[in-house]
């Protein structure tokens, strides 16, 4: 189902015009209201008037996470604080958090963007939506919540935490749609099995999972164990929160809400724009946000773009599912691997759970790789098989350690910390 036909199926030439108009206005506002952009444009020797077509975007300087951090807390706001009606923030687990402000119009835009991703999953006012993202500074809970209300679903703000309660809610409230991180969904699925709640005894039919990269293997697991359709969506607090891009029923990439964002993929090392179909770092520019516009923000997420038309009728460009974060790339000598590749191997092994953690360490000058996997009991056959397959993939010995269920820390929004690098810097 398409939520907003006018914009989601707009002719490409028309949308290019809309994008250009909004991009120019965003650049003009950012330059007038945000000192950082005036300085970064001056350093790059460009003016806002140089953006005469959508392609000229490449002339503008990048904005990095470090830039956003340096402006802590309110330096990047483009409107006075009295116009801001909501504040969210990144977790700050890897440094100073980024504080993001939303105006009333921004919240409307956000709900619209999320409504589109929910409608694409067939959600209507007849659904009961359980939002099991953390409600708080993290943007996941409130983002999904607002979109679900916009669609008209009955929204349960369950938040994350308390697996038993989640299961009870799913059963008693007859939840039809679940929104959370894929790793938390997998924990809920485990708890449902433990509680003896079978597929026939609950009403779940669709899951909207995001906020961390997840593999096709995990998707297959979640779909079969929960008896649902599992859809991916993408967002990050610095740019909006959930709702930047989403899968339609075809599941062949995530449609970018291009009437609100411009997406580019660049070479992570040189910053040069990459052609469609080639993997690189996703760079996003907001073109309607009032409170916290970002221009050419380096997301650190790896994917590729395609502008091939999608049979669903949406004319938005699509990005591939996120393969990982650039910072997550594990480099051990000649070995380079993303956690998502390791996840795929783990899930190919029958009986293994998707709750894992990768620990990289160094002893005696040699890097070592340990995979901790949550398991209900000792299962030497499974650990051996994972170890053998990973060893073959990476051409290096891998230790697999079983740990009890829920032993791995899930600090925020139910996300398991996937990589622990203990090597001295």
């Amino acid at each position, binding site marked *: 189902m398409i939520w907003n036909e006018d914009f989601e199926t707009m002719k490409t030439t*028309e949308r290019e*015009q*809309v994008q*250009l*108009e*909004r991009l*120019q*206005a965003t650049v*003009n*506002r950012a330059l*007038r209201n945000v000192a950082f952009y005036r300085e970064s444009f001056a350093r790059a020797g460009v003016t*806002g*008037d*140089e*953006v*005469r*077509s959508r392609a000229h975007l490449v002339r503008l300087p990048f904005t990095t996470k470090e830039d956003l951090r340096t402006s802590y807390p309110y330096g990047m706001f483009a*409107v*006075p604080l*009295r*116009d801001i009606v909501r504040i969210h923030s990144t977790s700050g687990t890897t440094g100073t958090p980024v504080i993001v402000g939303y*105006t*009333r*119009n921004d919240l*409307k835009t956000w709900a619209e963007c999320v409504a589109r991703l929910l409608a694409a999953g067939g959600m209507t006012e007849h659904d009961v939506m359980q939002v099991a993202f953390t409600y708080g500074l993290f943007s996941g809970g409130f983002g999904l919540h607002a979109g679900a209300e916009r669609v008209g679903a009955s929204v349960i703000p369950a938040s994350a935490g308390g697996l038993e309660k989640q299961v009870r809610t799913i059963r008693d409230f007859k939840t039809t749609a679940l929104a959370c991180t894929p790793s938390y969904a997998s924990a809920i699925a485990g708890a449902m099995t433990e509680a003896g709640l079978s597929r026939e005894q609950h009403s779940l039919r669709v899951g909207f999972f995001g906020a961390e990269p997840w593999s096709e293997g995990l998707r297959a697991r979640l779909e079969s164990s929960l008896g649902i359709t599992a859809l991916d969506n993408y967002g990050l607090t610095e740019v909006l929160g959930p709702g930047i891009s989403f899968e339609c029923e075809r599941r062949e990439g995530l449609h970018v809400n291009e009437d609100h964002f411009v997406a580019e993929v660049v070479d992570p090392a040189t910053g040069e724009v990459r052609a469609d179909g080639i993997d690189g770092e996703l760079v996003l520019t907001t073109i*309607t946000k*009032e409170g916290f516009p970002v221009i050419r923000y380096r997301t650190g997420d790896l994917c590729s773009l395609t502008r091939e038309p999608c049979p669903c009728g949406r004319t938005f460009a699509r990005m591939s599912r996120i393969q990982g974060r650039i910072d997550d790339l594990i480099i051990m000598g000649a070995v380079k691997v993303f956690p998502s590749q390791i996840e795929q191997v783990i899930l190919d092994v029958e009986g293994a759970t998707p709750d894992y953690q990768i620990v990289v360490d160094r002893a005696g000058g040699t890097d070592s790789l340990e995979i901790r996997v949550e398991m209900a009991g000792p299962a030497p056959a499974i650990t051996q098989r994972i170890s053998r397959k990973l060893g073959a993939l990476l051409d290096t010995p891998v230790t697999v350690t079983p740990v009890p269920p829920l032993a791995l820390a899930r600090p925020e929004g139910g996300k398991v910390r996937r990589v622990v690098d203990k090597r001295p810097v």
Partner: protein
Amino acid sequence: MLRITSLAARYGAAEVLHAVSLHVGPGEIVTIIGANGAGKSTLLNAVAGVVKPASGTVLLDSSRMEGADPAQVVSRGCVLVPEGRQIFPDLSVRDNLLLGGYLRWRREGKRAAAAEMDGVCELFPVLEERREQRAGTLSGGEQQMLALGRALMARPRLLMLDEPSIGLAPLVVREIFDVIRRLRERGTTVLLVEQNARAALAVADRGYVMETGRIMLEGAAAELAANHDVRRAYLGKEYRQIDE
């Protein structure tokens, strides 16, 4: 219908428009609001062929218009009602209207033009009453009606209005905006430049906010009316009133 891309214009060395882009869809009423000197009138004049743009493109449907002279622009169905009315004061109301329909007269004959005049007078009954009167003797509001009527005689596909409410009494302003509403019902596409932001945003589908030759904001009229910047700058000090 109208698509303007990165239009720039200058008067001598002074750059008045910097890379302005906007579009108007068929049947839409789109408004450009902004303070004096923002470049709103220059933008309309550049589309109308009165001001030659320095760079950028203007597409009316699929034909390029930048650099066309005013007569060509009118013959393609794009008509400007300039600020200050610019009617012919010594001619009668009737002759003013007929001049507006000159192109149609030439193309389709006298009967078509006369029929159009009847249609226009239906929209503005006051012009019917004053058909033979000298235009210079009309009140300000009536002159504005005449200027609008004259433009409609060409049966424009795109009507551009430059400050139609300027210098008029509040009651007359309301009447002018009522006419714009009725034009929308007739399916006329309108690009409206106004300093009276409140009235313009109330009648328009979408709007653009201009400042010093640049577009600062664009969006649905209701969204712009809700934007604090717009409220403070263009909707007056007691901007909270518009909630009522």
